């Protein structure tokens, strides 16, 4: 049986909460300039004995249940950042068993040209190519990401104070400010105007569910903690590979032992990986395109079909499922917005197959058809039961979930109206996409590659995500700029020539360490 998560005081709070009540946020991209000062600041924010006393600290998941937090601070490191911090070299060594995973070590963007094709797989080509990024492509890679959250009106002072303290050890090479929050009581919307962050996996903190049983023949939203936190069992009932260390490396006994490898310390435990992507949205281009293509209702119908949810409420286009879905609810709003699968819509007539939310999470179970008799299970497992041409094309969702903690930036309010009135906002806007996962390649990269940018997703052809697609033709000059909107009539369902609406402007893979690991990094000897 899997172990429940208990060490909340060791887990950075962002894993547990998106800090929705802290309406203001900014993300600082840092480079380490003075190692001992950098470590001194790290020691201070994790309240190491003897370290300087600051009026803020790293927020952990335990704080969230203790009291209301007026502000929050989180820290994550890129691979170059950890090396600059003098983290043990074996963590980065090729061929070592207990090193950081390769995708983290290499980073989201390789040097140009990208020989092994990570950018190709992520759709970061054409306009999205790292060579065009504002930050994140080598050598413009950040060492450290500091995330600041505060209640309305309080961020500026908080940020100023933190930046003053950082100045000794770090260079702040970019401050990514987020959008002012929507009006009180309103839901947070991304720049196109849609409610954002509706669907999240429910983390199985208490290890109440055993993954891989017959129950997984139905789609569920309660996901093993090990998918989002290192050091716990994942959806395979296994421990995701993570950085482990020899006890000799930790003379102060800071780190916890590895639960599955005797004699090793778990640097990863209670930490995870954070994928950061700076996505610029062409709000004006989006709304003028959809309103031109679908003049009725000023393009809202088309925009909703491309996203898969209603613009005004965020409700899904498909109707809620009658059966209860594990990990959804009991909140009525959650049931209305997430209590559904696409099974009642096999033709894509209600929600197009290519709609953004149907790609990003197809809500599939381990096997199509759900729970039936043993004979049926056996026939389906052996592939002996004939289904339609689209049957069983998609992987099971539970192995490919991410926690999303993104925030919008730029002019967000009323942009749609202003575009339609012919006055596009002058400021660039978009979203800082932030996702948390224990296995970057199986979670974020798989979703991005196999579902979002795959021109052949779910048996379709010549189209990628209608919102995120880069529209770059694939090998042999096959177009990818279409979108299919299945109609009962059977024809006229394909829209061609979609422009690019979202452009990648930066990004990085970070390690979001536990508080123990932060202490470990702060205390590591070898100052420079």
């Amino acid at each position, binding site marked *: 049986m899997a172990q429940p998560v208990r060490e909340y005081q060791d887990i950075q709070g962002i894993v547990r909460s998106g800090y929705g009540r802290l309406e203001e946020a900014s993300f600082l991209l840092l480079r380490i300039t003075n190692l001992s000062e950098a470590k001194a600041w790290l020691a201070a924010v994790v309240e190491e004995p003897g370290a300087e006393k600051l009026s803020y600290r790293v927020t952990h998941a335990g704080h969230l249940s203790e009291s209301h937090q007026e502000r929050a601070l989180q820290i994550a490191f890129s691979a170059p950042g950890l090396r600059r911090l003098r983290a043990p070299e074996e963590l980065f060594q*090729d*061929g*070592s*068993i207990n090193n950081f995973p*390769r995708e983290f070590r290499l980073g989201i963007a390789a040097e140009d040209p990208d*020989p*092994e*094709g*990570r950018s*190709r*797989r992520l759709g970061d080509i054409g306009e999205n190519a790292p060579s065009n990024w504002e930050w994140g492509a080598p050598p413009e890679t950040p060492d450290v990401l500091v995330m600041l959250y505060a209640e309305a009106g309080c961020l500026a002072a908080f940020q100023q104070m933190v930046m003053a303290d950082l100045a000794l050890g770090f260079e702040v090479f970019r401050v990514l400010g987020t959008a002012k929050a929507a009006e009180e009581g309103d839901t947070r919307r991304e720049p196109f105007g849609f409610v954002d962050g509706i669907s999240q996996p429910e983390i199985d903190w208490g290890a109440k569910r055993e993954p891989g049983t017959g129950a997984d023949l139905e789609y569920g939203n309660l996901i093993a903690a090990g998918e989002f936190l290192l050091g716990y069992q994942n959806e*395979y009932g*296994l421990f*995701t*590979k993570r950085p482990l260390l020899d006890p000799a490396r930790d003379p102060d006994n800071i780190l916890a032992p590895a639960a599955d490898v005797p004699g090793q310390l778990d640097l990863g435990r209670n930490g995870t990986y954070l994928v950061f992507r700076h996505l610029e949205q062409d709000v004006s281009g989006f709304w003028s395109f959809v309103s031109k293509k679908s003049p009725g209702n000023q393009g809202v119908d088309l925009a909703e079909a491309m996203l898969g949810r209603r613009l005004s409420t965020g409700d899904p286009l498909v109707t809620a499922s009658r059966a209860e879905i594990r990990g959804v609810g009991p909140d009525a709003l959650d049931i209305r917005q997430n209590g559904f699968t696409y099974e009642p819509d096999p033709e894509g007539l209600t929600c197009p197959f290519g709609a953004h939310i149907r790609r990003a999470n197809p809500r599939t179970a*381990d*096997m199509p058809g759900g729970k039936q008799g043993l004979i049926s299970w056996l026939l*389906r*497992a*052996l*592939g*002996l039961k004939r289904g339609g*041409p689209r049957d*069983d*094309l998609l*992987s*099971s969702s539970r*192995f490919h979930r991410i926690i999303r903690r993104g925030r919008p930036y730029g002019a967000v309010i009323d942009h749609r109206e202003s575009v339609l009135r012919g006055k596009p906002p002058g400021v660039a806007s978009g979203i800082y996409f932030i996702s948390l996962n224990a*296995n970057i*390649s*199986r979670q974020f*990269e*798989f979703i991005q*590659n*196999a579902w979002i940018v*795959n*021109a*052949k997703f779910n*048996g379709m*052809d010549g189209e990628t995500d209608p919102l995120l697609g880069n529209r770059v033709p*694939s*090998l*042999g000059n*096959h177009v990818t700029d279409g979108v299919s909107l*299945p*109609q*009962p*009539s*059977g*024809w*006229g*369902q394909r829209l061609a020539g979609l422009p690019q609406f979202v452009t990648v402007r930066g990004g990085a893979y970070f390690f979001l360490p536990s508080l123990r690991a932060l202490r470990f990094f702060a205390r590591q000897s070898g100052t420079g």
Partner: protein
Amino acid sequence: MVAAPIVPSGEADLRKLLLTMNDSPGTADPNNPLVPFGVFDTLHFARFVILNDATLSDLSVFGPEAEFPDAPIYLAFLGDCDGSADFLLADFVDRAGDGLRKIFAYCDGFNPNGDLLQWMRSHSVKPAANYVNWIGRTVLQIREEAALHEALAKYLTEYLADRSIRDKAKDQPRHIRDAFVRAVDENGPRLTPPAPTPLGWQIRRLISILAAVAAAFIVALPLLMLSAGAALLVYGAVLLIISAALAVFLVHLRRHETTDPDVQSPPKPPSDEHLAELGKLQDHDVTNQYTAFGSFKPGPFPRWTTTVIWWLVNLATPILYPRGNLARIKTIHFARWVFLDGKRGGLFASNYDGSSESYMDDFVNKVAFGLNLTFGQGVGYPRTRFLLWGGAEREQEFKDVQRRHALPTEVWYKAYPGLTLIDIARNARIRQGLERKTMTETEIRQWLSEI
């Protein structure tokens, strides 16, 4: 498949020569001067790959007598074609003889002035098992049907551009279909009637079915010939013998599964350099190649087990999975399992749609049992339980093992870039819809929605 040991000192030069055949990494130029794959109308896929097994040293965990220090490095030439492979081989000699001679000159004992066809025949290795996604579907058919789809899509766009026609068609989709049938009749594209499935394939399938019938007959024989009591006795005896044999097998199996030395302890992840080498060649087209090579555990048990399983795979797949899927996997165009070096080593080669990560996802989540059965006796394969469980279910360990055994495939050719199996099957349905005598209105709407 043609496989011949190369002169080891020539490996680097051979690799260089092979790379000249590509127009982008991992993708052969169909018109390359050495072997212009594009001129061979019956060829679906082809590859040249150097089988240099970097995992040979794993054998040392089984003791010095298991080691194989003088294992040859093979050059393998694989192709998947319509009709007779031998005929294609002769065609290769005719039209690409000079290029092939240049390539095979790196093989041990190759005589550039000798009879090339004879040499290739003598070095051809028959796969132990073969899988074809859709038996009888030819390259010509795939290409013509893709052209048809493209033409119909264009007709449809033009057709619907006319508002009056579109309004009329709303109630009578039959009009559209009739117009399409006429247009294709008049302007093409031309559609060659489907070729009959090669006799060899039909015979193979027939033999498989006959064998199944014969087996059923033998099973039923006591019932037919003896009284009920005697038959029961015979069945009981046979059952007893089978159970005993199974028990002996399971005891051996479990002993191997629990006591065989574990190569993966400590685990051996693939090196960064190796992964970069593989990654470089992948995801240029919607289809990718996979070539994996490894050794079997020493001793007769692993080899016999694998021999029987591969034989069964070869026998059963054309019967169980003739069209569109291999168990739950719908993305494999062709696959083959080949013994080498007197069953010391084995090769698996496939062509699949999607990325390597999603291919592995299917392996782990949909057909782990199949992977365990067919590769469970390989050195370094993650520990299995009763040959069906464990193994590929150990997700990351399995992915590491298969990537470590994957070989960079220098030269890879696909006759229809941009098309996945799902595309190909859809195009075939579109053609069938066009050629059908009658269709209901619902069927026509369904048909149109695929265009």
